[in-house]
């Protein structure tokens, strides 16, 4: 209970819009890395839209598609893909890291009886799945 007359004047320091860069005088590297992690989604989205557009062009015939492919074969587009790849890799790294951490936590999802799997095995599992998936896709794409 607080008597209404008892509340006193307070001061709230506003959070900066660029808090992930610098807030109230301090830079926090982890906030910055967090924002980079969230930004990966923009590149994922852009890439997926581009992918959908390419499939759409496939329905428009070989010329349209070839022209599109040709335009991708340029410095800026290659640069875009390299940046997108770096972000996508960062997404994979952070996402799999967090799921590993989560499954390793006290009441993890990976439980055998009452025992939780050791974190290192879970980590091997998730990063292993990534490598396996990558190899399978590459193999299928190159050989089908």
């Amino acid at each position: 209970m607080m008597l209404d007359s008892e509340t006193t004047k307070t001061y709230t320091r506003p959070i900066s819009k660029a808090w992930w860069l610098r807030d109230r005088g301090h830079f926090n590297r982890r906030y910055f890395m967090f924002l980079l992690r969230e930004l990966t989604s923009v590149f994922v989205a852009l890439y997926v839209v581009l992918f959908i557009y390419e499939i759409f062009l496939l329905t428009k015939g070989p010329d349209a598609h070839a022209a599109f492919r040709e335009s991708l074969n340029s410095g800026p587009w290659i640069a875009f893909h390299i940046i997108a790849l770096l972000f996508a890799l960062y997404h994979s790294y952070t996402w799999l890291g967090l799921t590993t951490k989560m499954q390793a936590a006290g009441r993890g999802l990976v439980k055998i009886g009452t025992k939780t799997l050791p974190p290192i095995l879970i980590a091997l599992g998730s990063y292993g799945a990534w490598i396996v998936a990558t190899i399978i896709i590459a193999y299928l794409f190159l050989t089908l």
Partner: protein
Amino acid sequence: MNIPMHDVLLVGGGGAGLRAAIAASETYRGADIGVVSKVYPMRSHTVSAEGGTAAVMREDDNLDLHAYDTIKGSDFLCDQDVVEAFVKEAVDEVIQLEHWGCPWSRDEDGRVSVRAFGGMSVKRTLYAADKTGFHMLHALFQTSLKYDAITRYDEWFVTSLLVEDGRVCGVTALNIRSGNIHAIGAKSVIICTGGAGKIFPFTTNAAIKNGDGMALAYRIGCPLKDLEFVQYHPTGLPGTGILMTEASRGEGGHLVNSQGERYLSEYVPGKMELGPRDILSRSFIHEERKDNVFKGPDGSYVHLDLRHLGEKIIDERLPFVRELTRNYVGIDPVYEPIPVRPVVHYCMGGVHTDINGATPIPGLYAAGEAACVSLNGANRLGSNSLTECLVFGARAGQVAAQHAADTDFADSASMARMAQDEQKRIETQFFGTNGKERVANIRDDLRKTMEEGAGIFRTEDALKTTCDTIRTLKERYKNIGIDDHSRVFNTDLVNALELGYMLDVAEGLAHSALLRRESRGSHARSDYEERDDENFLKHSLAYQTDGDPRIEYLPVTLTRWEPEERTY
């Protein structure tokens, strides 16, 4: 002026206070409970208790055994009817707390685990790793949130008890946030403000433990009982006084002097590290006199060695010990011994109450360390204090609620007047003058003289000096000046008010110690080394007067156990 009124008002929101609040609200439907606490309840010092909570839980144990251990531990100064009630109700209380979610450590079969503790003849200490007090307090606090009948006044500081027609009818309290003084009316007031360890320089006690509630009661004529009994915990970190729980010895840790010897074999051969705290603390002083101790910047110390327990046991049962030593002294107990020395830990004495927590003043109750129900006598056994908070918190809550049901509120207009007078008193005393004395200086001098005269070993001369010094400190206190004259969250003012409480409790303590010319439990007089049942098998009662306190005596209640020599 609108004055809040409660059937039962708790002063203090720690283990005893919250248990009492819940008990009071369960005593009868419609009971309206207030809890005034100078800190948010989960900050209360119960939070720091580490080792455990005693109760008879196993087949190899029984109530008489727990009672006997407690009585012997108290050096026969406890009231045996109180002890019998205590051991009986302890069992239900710890189970109740289990039902409220306390995460007690468990055996494989799902029962709560018990561990060994100093002075206990069998394993009967329930624990939640080595954060027992923390878990108990949070379980109690979080459970208290579900009782709508409980209204909290967080960060309100009680400045006086209101008395009308000889009965307590409420309190005045400073809302620390706003700086306003308010009257809060109550039919029953329960003091649960904890001990007064902070009147000593080296203590495991938190900054908030200044004997506030004891002094509040003392000032309205309520006697303080057995104040001279102050427990030193044998294993505190030098300097900070941070507690290395007794459980570290219960789990098998060794105390080793500078010669590499487990020196306790000379003093408590039968119990070694599991001897009672008063004897272990005195053993340290003997070793110090023999120069068998290490020397450091914060005085001498011995080693608490846990290395042979191994990392697994330490992490499982004593994780907090490892956390504290790593963070505060940079020592990892898995690889190095921990420096420890005796530090003030607990006040056996406190507000004089009967077996139900009722004081001689109608409407006033007390429980927990602030009270002296006479469970602990001259020396408390480790792990009885948390249980005491539960058992006598619950008792006091129930009895206070029953009293409230049969009583009317006092006149609110006169209470409002008293609150205005109190506001004036405080403004005049602390804001109106240009006193030159600093709070910190008087406080430091008080602590110094308490250590010198009323420490582990006491003598007539040293105690007389301490009594004189306290008298001059009280004079200096009248000339106090504080830096902060603002209203909002003025902790300078709070500290000054606390210092006033400390001086009162210290005065009662030193005079009680001076007149007890025997050695019993924690009270060790170098000039009277023997226990003297003929003259001193009785409680001391300190009453405040205009001059030195008046000390009276009260017989000890014996039921089934005759006093005998206390050896381990």
